[in-house]
Each structure stands twice: as C-alpha cells, then as structure tokens.
C-alpha cells in the first residue's frame, strides 16, 4: 500500500485508491487535513509556526512550514486534483498543537498554532468538523484515502480515531 509521508513543513495530496497520507510526531505542530468528498482527495499540511513574517525566505522555500502560507499552498496543491481552489465543500479536521506541562504564555506554541489555523480557515469560510488539539503528548497521524479515516498514535497510548 502506498504512503505519502510528510515531514515538518511539507504538504501533499492524494486520490490514489489504497494510499495513505501520514505525518510523524506532531508536537506543537498542527496537521491540517482536508478531505474533498467530490474528488475523493485527501490533503494534509504539517505546519510548525503561526506566522511567516518571522522568515520570509523560509516561507518561499517551504510554505508549508507556516500556517499563513501552508494552508493556501495546500489548497493550490489540491486544486491540481480538481478540488475547489477556495476549499468549498471540503471537510476539515485538525490534530496536534500539544504543549508541555505547566507551560507559560511564551511556550504555548501549540495553542498559537491551533488558533492561527482556525483564523485562516475562517477567512476561507471553512471550519473544522473534528479536532484533536492540545494536551501534552505527541501524535502520529495516518489518513486513508479510501475511507478518509484518521488514525492517531502516540508512544504509550493505544491508537485512536478522529
């Protein structure tokens, strides 16, 4: 079975039957998953930081690294599969955005990532139907192209579905 593995700051999409889209060990990073029922396409971006303003050059080289450039880049990618370029009709699911224990405001990168994602999605008129954000554990995420089913795993925990 084919797998598309996405690293930090990567985005990708697939409509190939039997394939999976996967990303490993989201800490404070967020995985934005877009499912397009019409074209049966699954898209995912693994964003690390909220704003590309901290490093424009990096956002050009790897737009998926930042929330504000990563989500638009994923939509452009999915348009190649015949999906609506504004994300119309897509189902949105989110996971990741963890924090360490007893964290202070500065270190709430996970929370800021989650909020930034929701803000951008809102601009597109999109909202998540399911999310598994926050907590203090890392998540590995696998999405099946056939069923759109999302399986999460984390060391020391049993797998769960989103």
């Amino acid at each position: 079975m084919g797998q598309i593995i996405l690293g930090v700051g990567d985005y990708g999409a697939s409509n190939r039957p039997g394939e999976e889209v996967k990303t490993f060990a989201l800490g404070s990073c967020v995985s934005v998953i877009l499912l397009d029922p019409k074209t049966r396409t699954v898209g995912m971006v693994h964003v690390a930081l909220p704003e590309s303003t901290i490093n424009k050059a990096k956002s050009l080289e790897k737009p998926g690294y930042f929330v504000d450039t990563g989500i638009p880049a994923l939509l452009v990618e999915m348009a190649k599969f015949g999906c609506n370029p504004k994300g119309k009709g897509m189902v949105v699911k989110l996971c990741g955005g963890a924090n360490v224990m007893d964290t202070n405001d500065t270190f709430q990168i996970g929370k800021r990532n989650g909020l930034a994602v929701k803000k951008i999605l809102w601009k597109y008129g999109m909202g998540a139907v399911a999310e598994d954000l926050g907590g203090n554990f890392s998540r590995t995420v696998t999405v099946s192209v056939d069923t759109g089913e999302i399986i999460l795993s984390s060391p020391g925990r049993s797998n769960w579905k989103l």
Partner: protein
Amino acid sequence: MTEKISHEEIQKVIKSVPLLSPSANQLLQATTDPDHDQGDIVQIVKLDATLTARVLKIVNSAAIGLINEITSLERAISYLGERLVVGIAVGDCAAQLFDKELKGYEGEHGDLWRHDLRTAIASREIATLSNLKINPDLAFTAGLLHDIGKSLISDYLQGTASEVLSKIENEEYGDYLTAEEELIGIDHPRAGYELALAWKLPEAITEAIRFHHTPAEAREDLRELVYAVHLGDNIAMLGGCGTGADSMHYKLDPNYSQYIELKSEELARVMLTVDVEFNKLERSFSAAGDSNQ
C-alpha cells in the same frame, strides 16, 4: 511490578558502560574553560588518530558539500566548529548509550540521539540570545548529554509507560520524573548525574544533567546554563522530537524568565533555526557512516 534499583545496582550499570575516551574527556574540559581557543581543540584531536580520521571524514562528506577536499585538521575543525567536534568525540564513545532503543519509554531506535542533538542545538541557540553570558559551545555539549541517564534506567521501566501516562492524567503522578522515582527509586537526571560523576565530567555539564528538569535547584553560578538546557529540552520535545511516551510530560519552570529573556517571536525563530540546523547536522553525521543513526 517494577522493582526499585539499589544504589549498588545503578553503580553496576554505570560500570558496564564504556568510559569516555581521554580525548573526549579533554575536549569536554576544554569547552568549559572560558579561556580556551581553537588551538587547544586541535591539539587534543591531533593526538587521537581515530578521532582525526572521523573529523576529516565528516567535513568531507557529501552532506557538508565542500567543493575542495579539506586535508588539514586545523581547517576541518575551524569549518565544523568546536561543538560539532566535541559532539563527534562524545557521540563515538557513548554510541552504545545514545544508540539505545529506550524500551522503557516506548521510544524507537535513534530517538534518544535525535532528541539529544535537537536539545543541543536549541540550548546553543538560547545561549546566543543577547542578554546571556553562557558559552554557546558549552550549552551545546550540555544539551547533548542531558538525557544520558535515560539509557541507564530505561530497561528497568519496561512495560510501565501506559500506566504512567494514565496516572499522570489522573494526577497521581505530578510528571514523568515522579513516576521514575516512584517506580524504580531513581529518576533519569539523577541516574545521569551518577554517570557524570563516574565519567568525571566538568561540573557545569554535570549540573546541567542533574537539574535539567529542576533548574532552580542548580548552583547559582551555573543556573543560566542549566535554564538554557531546560528550555532547549522543552523546545526539542515541542518540535516532536522526544524520547517516547515521556515526551512533554515534564513541567516547564516559568522562572526561567529571571535568567533568560525570551519573547514568543524569538522562540519561534529559535525553533525554526533548530529545525534547519538539525537537518544539516543529522545529514553530516549519517553521511559519515555514524553508528548513531
């Protein structure tokens, strides 16, 4: 049911671990001396043929991408930088520890080395922030060694991870350190500290290993360094690079702000640099056929 590890037993485990090579030890000592220069580093490496060969192999590896081959040790060291040379020396001696699959934490093979390398880079980046007086090379080395204790106690923790996680969730344990202490009678910073004593590591590094989760307890004159490693460790975990089930189940000490001024934008920049540098370093280590991968 796990059993507590006695003092004698932990000493036995430490004795079974190889000692650091004399050159690795000298390099660590040199890093902590504020008056040392690159000439001192070259002198130490020069006397160790294996290390010299490794350094030259890494500097000329494809990952570094030099057009012309470097054959002089001086140039190789100045190109790679002191911290990387120390990293190579320590990494080679302690490969058995860094390389260990941390079954007790349900970590995968290579997790510890990746986490340590990320912590090292993040600690160094924190150390370079403007208001600090920490030597960035020292912060790198301390970051590299901070979790070495996990290798010593991991086997004793086998099969405990899921129970520990639910007990932390139910607030029976405050964090993963409490769990280690409760289950086997010693937590990983103290196990690491015992090893640091056996290895006769410099005090600054020993202190960072011992107090990386409780930096407020570190010696006042070394507290800045220990806080840098504390933050570096947390940054590595947030970056998704922990050592298994324990990742992010530790407390961040917010009092770091008394020693280290860090705005959220600076933190974001540090995290980005850590990602970029980590990918580069990991490539150069693996290109040189390092066993720590």
